[in-house]
């Protein structure tokens, strides 16, 4: 067969970022924000986006500093093999935790909204299996899938907004700036969870077709911008539909809205079936890059050519981790906490360290 070069185009990178970020967190985001900041949750979203952006720039800069190398080579050269392997293990733990969280949440929600009698374990297991099938392939296939599915991610938001628009009460958004700004860190802590996923850049950037810094920065501004707009729009939408107290009480206010809206024309009674279907695809495109990256990490640690065997090995691990918490309440308290801790390491600290240590080493080498 022809030796295929694994390459990702710029538009695929945009899609990859958008679909990696928007995922399981989107349904519960309004609830978490309202809990932290009442009606001013959108400030937290905006600020988080501004916080995320420098990190993305740093990631792009890392690859600018080390042209034609992938993250594994760069890490080994900057940190040394033992330390970087530890970093990789942290990444792995993070990916497993987040994949498990996604699979479990999916199982719980499908059981609550679509399949009332099927066991949750079976639902989650099938989902992990589906993701595994796609994750066995290389990054270019994953980028293609991300590009195919990302109109759905945006369509998901647009459909929600369109159907809810007739019954919206925009006065509900006001008054703004009423909340205690000291709650802001708390709000940001909650929104960061909704922004995880962009670290796929670390694994995807070396395969970018066009490595010009300007293009990549543009692509990431565009995609993080889209995510932010969608998040703010959805948060505002929830405010126009429900009272703050309702949002605080329901863990998935967006699904509540879909149940409340009646479609004109009465073709479907309520939209939650449609929305759930699209949502499954949306979180599939979120979990896929993570599952893929964890397989890649393992294959680099054990120095194998293909990562497909590790995808299979990871399958039961993710499944078992997903069912460590007993109830959904436990799941929603423990898992985000773990993911937040690991996420801070993975998203901010390790990339920043990689960048700084690399720079310092380089300066020393020069002098």
């Amino acid at each position: 067969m022809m030796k295929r070069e694994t390459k990702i185009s710029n538009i695929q990178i945009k899609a990859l970022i958008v679909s990696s970020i928007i995922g399981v967190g989107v349904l519960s985001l309004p609830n978490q924000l309202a809990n932290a900041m009442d009606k001013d949750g959108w400030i937290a979203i905006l600020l988080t986006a501004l916080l995320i952006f420098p990190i993305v720039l740093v990631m792009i800069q890392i690859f600018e500093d080390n042209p034609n190398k992938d993250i594994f080579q760069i890490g080994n050269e900057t940190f040394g093999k033992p330390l970087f392997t530890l970093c990789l293990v942290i990444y792995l733990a993070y990916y497993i935790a987040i994949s498990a969280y996604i699979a479990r949440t999916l199982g719980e929600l499908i059981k609550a909204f679509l399949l009332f009698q099927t066991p949750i374990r079976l639902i989650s297991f099938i989902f992990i299996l589906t993701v595994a099938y796609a994750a066995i392939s290389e990054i270019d296939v994953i980028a293609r899938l991300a590009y195919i599915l990302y109109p759905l991610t945006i369509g998901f938001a647009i459909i929600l907004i369109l159907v809810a628009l007739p019954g919206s009460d925009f006065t509900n958004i006001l008054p703004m700036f009423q909340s205690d700004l000291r709650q802001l860190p708390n709000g940001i802590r909650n929104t960061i969870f909704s922004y995880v996923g962009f670290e796929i850049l670390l694994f995807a950037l070396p395969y970018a077709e066009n490595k010009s810094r300007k293009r990549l920065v543009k692509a990431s501004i565009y995609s993080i911008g889209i995510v932010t707009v969608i998040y703010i729009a959805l948060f505002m939408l929830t405010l126009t539909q429900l009272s703050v107290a309702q949002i605080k009480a329901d863990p998935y206010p967006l699904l509540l809205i879909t149940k409340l809206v009646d479609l004109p024309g009465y073709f479907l009674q309520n939209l939650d079936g449609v929305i759930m279907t699209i949502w499954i695809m949306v979180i599939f495109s979120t979990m896929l890059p993570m599952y893929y990256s964890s397989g890649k990490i393992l294959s680099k640690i054990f120095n194998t050519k293909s990562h497909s065997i590790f995808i299979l090995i990871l399958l039961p691990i993710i499944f078992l981790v997903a069912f460590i918490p007993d109830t959904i309440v436990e799941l929603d308290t423990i898992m985000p906490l773990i993911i937040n801790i690991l996420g801070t390491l993975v998203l901010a600290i390790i990339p920043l360290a990689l960048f700084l240590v690399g720079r310092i080493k380089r300066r020393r080498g020069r002098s």
Partner: protein
Amino acid sequence: MIEKISKNIDANIQYIKDILRDNDDLVIRNFEVGEVLRVKMSVVYIDGLINKDFISQFVIGSLMREEDIKSFTLEGYKTTIFEAVQKHGLYSSEIKDESKWDPLFKAMLSGDTLLFVDGCDKAIIVGSRGFPSRSIGEPQTETVIRGPRDGFTEVIKFNTTLIRRRIRDTSLRVKMYSVGRRSQTDVAVMYIEDIANKELVEEVKRRIEAIDIDAIVDSTILENLIEDNYLSPFPQVENTERPDSVAAALYEGRVAIVVDNSPFVLIVPATVGTLMQSAEDHYTRWIEVSVTRIIRHLGLLLLLLSGPLYVALTAYHPGLLPTKLSYFLAASRNNVPFPAIVEAALMEITMELLREGGTRISGPISTTIGIVGGLIIGQAAVEAGIVSPLMIIVVAITTVATFVIPSYEYSAAFRMVKFVLFLFSGFFGLYGITIGVILVLSHLAKLNSFGIPYTSPYSGLGVIEGDLKDVLVKVPVQKLWLRPGFTKPRDKQRMRLDKYDEKRNEDI
């Protein structure tokens, strides 16, 4: 096996007789040429493959009657008898000399005539192919309302000619191969050199050269041999009976593979975009094409999803339907003793039976099958209470939807996928359907057609070049000024708008 022919004509003739023993259609005509020299010559051919009149008149006739040859003596000339025959003796426009047996036999079995001259260690191959063939007719599978009516036949030379007539470009290439150890089937790879991507052309050639099989009976076999993923249900090579479609594809930078004895020409690469285009699309106004294309894609969705959705909604999620429809559905299924999935399986199997029966049987009877199957069985099944009327509607829609997809193989692949989706929806309802759709999308994303992503342009390649303007909808020709990007053409520009506008403004 002797490799080269000998100087002795009798030995050569004997050798041919030995190798092709028990072949009574082998014709050997011995004669002598020249009143002076009396050189022994033999014409050897297979009866039926050649144009006999031509050989009698312009080979044997010319040699025996031509004055130069008649009175030919070697004295005073610096040539041999062989050269004299080659240069002065034959009226034929296509001759070649050859000393090895292998190509000689191959030429003879392809319909050429061999001319042996005594005392020479070379023989002459005279092009004389004239076997019975079908004349060029209208394509059977891809009919259009408006557009050319000529279709490919089983003869490779006719087919390449039909394509060539549409591309009078010096950079059109026709590279001939012969594939199959025993069948020695002619295969022509056609492309336009300054448009088609070089790597693509090389890859096509490489894959064809790599084939080592005894026979290529039809282009389908070649297609299966050069496909990227032969396990997939989806066809990764396009085929067509229409020379205009091939020409259009070549102008897009794709590569055509013409196989002898097959009226279906292969085109690579194929993508989910190109497989949904029909020849008619080139000849219809853009707005109509756009609507038709959307209908076609809708048909694809209906084919894939209407049945499984019926099963999922009745068995798992009646609550998702409006209350009235939900009651109606329940009432219509009141008498049906099976679960929805069994009901669906029954009707689908019946439909497949009718389809297969209708395809295999000759024309007039197949209409009867349609009436008996479609009307009587459907009606009776509902009245007997085996299936609900809604199920009949779903199956009917699904069947009609299979035919709106231009590529038969592509729609057949989706039909197969539909059965899997039925199973998924039977076990997991809407969730199962979603998982099934995701699996199909993942599979499609993994596929490549000659290194080109199968899902182009939906998966990113060619979006910048504007490929999306000619898939789900088709914009006017004036707006398609770039060639499709998914083939990575060497020459991207299809049309220069500035010139066009200038000319048009002059006229007004």
